[in-house]
């Protein structure tokens, strides 16, 4: 696996050394890529040798290998001629070993023309011709810095994945982001994007642009520095009151020490929870094809309700509901970020496919742990973000790493549904495990919160996430 982290210019301009180190630690980056060479000295100074720094090369007349090992390679290509050279090389090598090759370039740019209702991939013709001549159209995954990291589409057989945050405003909101990809030997690209403000001192509650400056002047450069400062000292700085100082220090402590703080009086539901997580074919899905249910009270039983036929959107759901009706009544149904995704999606699909369960579902006790902790401010969670995986890992959970993300799973299912055949069929067992890992991680967080006796000392203004995430829906895998 190669961990490729991409920082656009807008992020580089605002990124401090401390944040940069935080980013590399968080993603476990192998390669840092940013287009402008001017940042190379800064990157090299701030990072140690284990990270390969890469900026957009001048056209050197040949492909440039960025990283690679026996079964995976990441190569920069500047021109179709580079591409041709590369194909020749790999086709010779292929006979010896099978290896997955990722191409990174600026050759393919996505644009839409709303007036004529047309989308274009600029540069496709020359690029594809080169592939076609060598019979290599379906061969590689083509990473382009001219499209957003959420972008993935096939253009006449050419599989294109964007990597650059804010590459194209038409494709989403523009912000200082960082994208990270886990390039795997089976061609799966696990992509994540995070905002720059999630890293370094900025990740702390109540600390933004001007306060960072104030703290810096007071010789506080990192979260760790802040976590060990006294409320008295911080509240004496300009722009900090008592409450703000207390909240900021506590937030830094929570992140640094990986522990939970609960609000006084905060309590989790009575009753034995049913933890759930759903897999779909997208954010506004046409099918829920897997509902993972985890029951810690029954010897940690995991039940995947699954239906792999894309034409049967009711089956998995019905199976889950009939089980719920018989065994799950009156028990809290717990999901992470459930009010934003799982609960309304289930609700809508019940109305569409099995309305007789509508009342059962709507009268059930649904509990969104994320909403309760973060939005309702009942607990401060550790981890650089409040995403499920980050919180769980900060609390000692060791993930079963499938390399999948929710978005990737949805994409694979879409591909299968459009053309069900062995070549597109998903590795269902692997997806069950992926889903299982998520519900178990959720239960882990839940139990840790339940067991925690740490109290929030600050009444804590608004939490990190509700402040900073308010405009984005997030992706399937975000929580």
């Amino acid at each position: 696996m190669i961990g490729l982290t991409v920082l656009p210019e807008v992020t580089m301009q605002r990124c401090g050394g401390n944040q940069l180190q935080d980013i590399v630690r968080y993603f476990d980056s192998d390669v840092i890529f940013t287009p402008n060479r001017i940042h190379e000295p800064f990157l090299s100074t701030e990072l140690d040798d284990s990270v390969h720094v890469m900026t957009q090369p001048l056209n050197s007349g040949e492909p440039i290998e960025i990283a690679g090992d026996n079964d995976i390679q990441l190569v920069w290509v500047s021109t179709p001629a580079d591409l041709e050279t590369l194909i020749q090389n790999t086709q010779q090598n292929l006979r010896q070993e099978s290896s997955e090759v990722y191409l990174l370039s600026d050759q393919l740019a996505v644009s839409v023309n709303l007036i004529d209702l047309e989308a274009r991939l600029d540069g496709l013709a020359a690029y594809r011709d080169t592939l076609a001549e060598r019979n290599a159209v379906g061969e590689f995954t083509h990473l382009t810095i001219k499209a957003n990291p959420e972008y993935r589409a096939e253009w006449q057989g050419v599989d294109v994945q964007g990597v650059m945050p804010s590459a194209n405003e038409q494709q989403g909101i523009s912000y200082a982001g960082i994208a990270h990809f886990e390039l795997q030997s089976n061609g799966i690209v696990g992509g994540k994007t995070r905002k720059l403000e999630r890293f370094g001192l900025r990740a702390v509650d109540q600390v933004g642009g001007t306060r960072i400056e104030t703290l810096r002047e007071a010789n506080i450069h990192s979260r760790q520095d802040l976590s060990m400062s006294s409320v008295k000292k911080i509240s004496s700085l300009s722009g900090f009151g008592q409450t703000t100082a207390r909240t900021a220090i506590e937030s830094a402590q929570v992140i640094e020490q990986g522990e939970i703080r609960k609000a006084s009086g905060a309590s989790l539901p009575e009753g034995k929870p049913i933890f759930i997580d759903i897999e779909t074919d997208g954010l506004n899905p046409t099918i829920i094809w897997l509902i993972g249910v985890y029951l810690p009270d029954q010897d940690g039983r995991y039940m995947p309700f699954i239906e792999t036929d894309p034409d049967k959107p009711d089956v998995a759901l019905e199976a889950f509901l009939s089980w719920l009706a018989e065994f799950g009544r009156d028990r809290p149904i717990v999901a992470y970020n459930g009010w934003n995704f799982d609960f309304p999606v289930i609700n809508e699909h019940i109305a569409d496919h099995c309305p007789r369960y509508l009342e059962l579902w709507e009268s059930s006790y649904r509990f969104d742990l994320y909403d309760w902790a973060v939005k309702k401010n009942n607990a401060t969670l550790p981890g650089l973000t409040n995403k499920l995986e980050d919180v769980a890992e900060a609390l000692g959970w060791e993930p079963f790493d499938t390399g999948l993300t929710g978005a990737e799973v949805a994409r694979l299912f879409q591909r299968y549904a459009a053309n069900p055949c062995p070549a597109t069929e998903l590795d269902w067992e692997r997806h069950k495990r992926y889903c299982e890992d998520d519900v178990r991680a959720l239960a882990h967080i839940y139990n840790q919160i339940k067991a925690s006796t740490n109290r929030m000392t600050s009444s804590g203004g608004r939490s990190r996430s509700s402040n900073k995430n308010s405009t984005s829906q997030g992706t399937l895998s975000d929580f």
Partner: protein
Amino acid sequence: MSQNTTPSLDAVLNANTLEETFPDYEGQLIDTIADPPRKANTVPATDVLPDELGDLLENDLYSHQAEAIRELQSGNNVTVATSTSSGKTWVYTLYFCLQKMQNPDARALFLYPTKALSVNQERKVNDLFDQLGIDAVAETYDGDTKDDRKKLIRDRVDVVISNFAGINQYLDSHMKWRDIFKNCELMAIDECHTYTGVHGMHVAWVIRRLRRLLDHYGSDPQLVCSTATIGNPREHSEHLTGAEFEIIDEDGSPHGRREVGFWQPPLQETGDLVEELEEDEILPSMRRNSDEEAAGALVHLAKNDVQTLMFTDSRQGTEIGVKRAIEAARSHPDGKYIDVEPYHAGLSKRKRRAVENQLNAGQVDGVISTSALELGIDIGSMDATVLAGYPGTRQSFWQRIGRAGRGTTDSLSVFVPQSDAIDQYILNNPDYVLEENVEDAVIDLSNNPVYAKHILCAASERPLTEADTKWFGPRDRLSRAINMWQAAGQLVGDLDRGAQYNGTARPQSGISMYATTDEQYDVRQVDGEIDMEPLDKERVYREYHPGALVLYDGDQYEVQEVVEDRINPYVTVERSNSANYTQAIHNKRITDLDVERSYDLGGGYQLCAGMGTVHINYSAYNVIDMYTGEIVEPMIPIDLAPISLRTQVMWIAFPREIVSRVLNEIPRSSYLQPEDSGEFASMGEEEYTLAGGLHGGEHGMIKMAPLELRLDNSDMGGLSTLHHNEVGSPVWFIHDAVEGGVGFAHSVYENFQSVAQRTVERIDNCDCERDVGCPACLMSSQCGNQNEPLHRPAAISFLRAALNKVEDATTG
């Protein structure tokens, strides 16, 4: 001995009495138009309503109300196009009562263009339910609704009142709305003439998205539109909703005799010099300030017990108007105390509600309002209105005038023109405003950029399938949009399996229903607690820049700081006490041109389309004496970045030689002379005249574009200059007025020849025969330069030169 028997205004309310009673009258009244009285045409309520309802109504129904209810009873959709306060709300409220009597589960959506109107109509609807003993409640659900009411309203309240910006957002969680969506039997779209241009397009697609979900939940409500007088009520309702309508426009409500007096501010006392001038040599600037004159008219009417509503076009204008009125009241010979209040959307809800109530109860003598009171807010009827300036359209002109008149008593409106050229023209040509030529409301459903954005929203609300061609078809267009978004990574799936939204942010948030930015600035007072609605960014830059003196609800404040570097930006103000106000000076630039398509016409003529950045820079402000209108301190710099808009532009560039060609073609005697003071003072007459030609050509094309293309010219802007840095020659630009553009300027580019042809014909044949043109040819109320300079012969010359080149290029 006979007494001088001048009648008083409260006894005989007309323009003549105004003239006779006005203190120190100086010949201001220069024209009058009159509308004869109209008798009520009524129908017994029990003709269309069951006795148990009809008997509870105190009055008969107006014929148009009865007719509309009859049409609804036969299952049709209805558009009611009758006057303000002719009881349009009653039509759909009464019909809902009938529906409710037949089906206790029936629910309805009443949709209004503003939150203020929603609140106001909620009361009116509930009062009627009470009066008729109908077991139903109406309640408003919008951005101001408290969280703990929301679920209750969605689940239980019979009539949900809201607006389209809200609906655009709520559709995303349609499951929560399913009870009302399932049981919705009536949808009322009030004041639907306000949905035009880009805003109208958005509303039209929101309505289709809404109707699609209503259909999904199994309902197909009847539709009622109400509208002020527009040229095309049927077509407009049908474009807006996608349904068919019966039109009810025979107004059965009565009114008395109505007069509109055209009232020109008198010359300022500047001595012999002015008296020697010929009539056509008098410049508007030599006359008394027209806002002051309007305030004087308001005060005089109010002192005569004539309750008067005055309209002006800015919030500050209402506040300054009140100050001027107080001053005018002091110098008025009648010592009676009068109460004059401001009204505008920036005031707190509490304050606005209080003024509405005072108006209704006749407890206030005069109110100065922005267009906020133009729409159907229930304030009862006024005796008189004063229009300080032409509002830009005949539709709006008459809507404002229609606020005057109680029942069958006579009413009076006074139109006081601004010094702006368009107002001056109307003053001299009152026929221009006569009602027969009221403007059409324009919606362009074929516009793809707006369509495509709503397709994304629809796909996120429910996956799009074949069945949805009913709402978003034809199929070919829908599948092209889906293919485009799919290739762009925003949609996955197809019409067979369902195309769903796949982006990261909610697409509904990407819909900007209004042309302004969505960013709202709070207002904080450093030395007290000001209760004020948040301001949008444009207003902050224009009126709340640091150093600005602003009036708010009668008190004056000085703006201290604009704090922007955060999620919730704000402005701080401090109480102040000066007799001055401030006015920001702006300039407009277009930069960073990016040519996407161009046509070289040869000889240095070039036609281009692409992207550009339009900057409005509020660079300095003048401090002005509130009472005299004199500049106390000129040109204090403002330290705020320009407001910029990256959007689509088209331009035509002329070669430098055009200058001598145009000057040769127009008579020397027609050359324009710039005013000695003012921004053009440094120009020579040749240069000024040429600038007038370019400016005129730009205006003319923007004005004519809607005739050729379906668009509303208020969604476009323009700029002309004799020298542009990036283009390097004389040029005029036409640009879209919304971020990113929606194809208006580009369609002007595509249709340049036909639009230019039409423009030249119109300008050349205009009856005004004036060198500076008129509103029918060159003048526009949207102009940022008070329509100066404009030169008709030079504009014709520029347009002809361009057209010749286009013809050569296309035939040669």
